[in-house]
């Protein structure tokens, strides 16, 4: 079953107004080529659902494509507060559903199981259930009488996820950070996968243990080399902190619109051409291939 499409065909799978789950976490493995394509196509009015979001969600907000955001964190980490997220919330132009990070996983898990909710024990005296009351409820265990927290199922209309390799049928392999991408793929109504490389099914069968998203969950497969850039995609490339710092600086210097407009106006090939110089590619791949681990004597 050939599910391969071009990046330019992403809009056949994501419509304005959709709820959209975006894979990756922190500065790793976000489907950035797809994020850029959404900006190119101007697919807006989105309800974005992230797990641990960063530049992916910040850019979509910056491009004016996000109506509503379900999240536990949006951060550029060492590189500062996420500028567009921060501004949109402070200006009151973004509907936010702030949910604790483990609860988001629980909500996706509920969606994957065709359940309207799943319980968890509790999250202490957090105020999040107070400000996001639609996501949390109390429930009593019918066996023990214990009071537990119920988390409402999260079922995105569509999920986009970046992986290392996939075959044309959508069997996806990952060898680095995968966040809650498998849970997201199970929960979503449709799943679009971008990958560093499309391979034959025989390649998948050679190491089935790394297949974290089986093909029956996937609707479309897009080949997008450096598709997580500037976030990492281990074992292919390390974190392009230089690019993220440049983004943070541009936003701090009032050049956010220019920066976003540039991304929206060029093709993905042109983006790679512009941003990934030979030296940059050498640096990012070298970082990924030369891990600095420390010898210990334990087991």
């Amino acid at each position, binding site marked *: 079953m050939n599910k391969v499409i071009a990046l330019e065909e992403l809009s056949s799978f994501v419509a304005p107004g959709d709820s959209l789950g975006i894979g990756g*976490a*922190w*500065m*790793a493995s976000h489907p950035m080529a797809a994020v850029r394509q959404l900006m190119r196509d101007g697919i807006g009015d989105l309800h974005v659902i992230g797990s641990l979001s960063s530049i992916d969600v910040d850019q979509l907000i910056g491009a004016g494509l996000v109506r509503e955001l379900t*999240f536990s*964190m*949006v*951060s550029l*980490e*060492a590189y500062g*507060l996420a500028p567009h997220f*921060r501004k949109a*919330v*402070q200006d*009151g132009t973004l509907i936010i559903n*702030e949910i*604790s*990070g*483990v609860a988001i*996983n629980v909500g996706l898990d509920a969606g994957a199981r065709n359940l309207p909710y799943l319980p*968890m*024990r509790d*999250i*202490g*005296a*957090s*105020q*999040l259930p107070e*400000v996001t009351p639609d996501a949390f409820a109390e429930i009593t265990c019918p066996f023990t009488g*214990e009071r537990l927290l119920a988390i409402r199922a999260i079922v995105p209309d569509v999920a986009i996820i970046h992986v290392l390799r996939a075959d044309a049928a959508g069997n996806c392999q990952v060898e*680095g*950070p*995968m*966040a*809650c991408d498998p*849970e997201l793929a199970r929960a979503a109504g449709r799943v679009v996968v971008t990958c560093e490389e499309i391979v034959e099914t025989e390649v998948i069968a050679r190491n089935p243990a*790394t297949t*974290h998203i089986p093909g029956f969950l996937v609707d479309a497969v897009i080949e997008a080399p450096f598709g997580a850039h500037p976030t990492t995609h*281990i*074992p292919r490339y*390390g*974190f*392009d*902190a*230089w690019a993220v*710092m440049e983004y943070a600086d541009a936003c701090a210097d009032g050049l956010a619109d220019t920066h976003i407009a540039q991304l929206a106006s060029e093709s993905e090939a042109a983006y790679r051409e512009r941003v990934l110089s030979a030296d940059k590619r*050498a*640096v*990012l791949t*070298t*970082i990924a291939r*030369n*891990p*600095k*681990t*420390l*010898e*210990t*004597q*334990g087991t």
Partner: protein
Amino acid sequence: MSDYRIEELMVCRIASEVDDSGVTVLGSFTPLAYAAYMLAKLTHAQDAYLVGFNAIGMPAVELNLTGVEAAIYSGALAYWSFGPTTQTVHLGKRGLVECVSPAQIDGSGAFNLACIGDYNNPKVRMPGGAGSPEVMQHYERILVYFGRHDKRTLVDKVDFRTGQRYPLEASARLERGLLAGAIRVITPLAVLVKDDDAKPFRIETLNPGVDVTEVIENTGFELEVPTNIGTTAEPTPEQIKLLRDRIDPYATIKFDFLDAQSRKDMLRDLLQGEWDRALATSRENVGA
């Protein structure tokens, strides 16, 4: 031993909480916490089970800005997505040590990672707490650290309760099916501890050379002050050597102790070094 920086003392204090009795999960990139976990693994807790991203049983890694993900995965013993990890470790009573460095904490133990000002109309919107509400509630040993100890961070009342470990009494926690364990606040001045909702934070130890008055004056909430307060242990020469030579040769742990502009300068310098070293390695490999 006196040749150490305050952040190194704090790293060693955090490291002392890590052992092999549970699983410690690395959260957002927080150099101080990362350094502490690596130090534990290189000294007294070589069998400590660490998780970074989805790498279960990750090795000890050198701290840097661009290569930590790759190192974490190199030598990992298993891969789990967040689902099984959060269910089994975070919620499954196997979480051992958690370090969190929020914008604010108050005397109840509530912390804030959401906003300065009103939640619905914030002056500053911050990133949000990620998994910290659950982690703070479910792990055994909670360490809240700050690069500075003042009344802007240790406040009377947080602007928003992103999370709060509750209840704190061991018996109440065990009854609810939760792990027991105190909250500790680790700062450049002292270590504070709280294990009872009805009582204030107690000064557990003072860092060397710090006077109790300095702690009280810089804390925005009430403190219990025991008559005899010990001193936070100083780093050993071996610890300092490991930190400087192997774990954190580029001194990333300073990060939390700098103001915004110095942070930016530091990041630029660190990144320049990482670029140069990576490019050199890449050329060597081509040459080889």
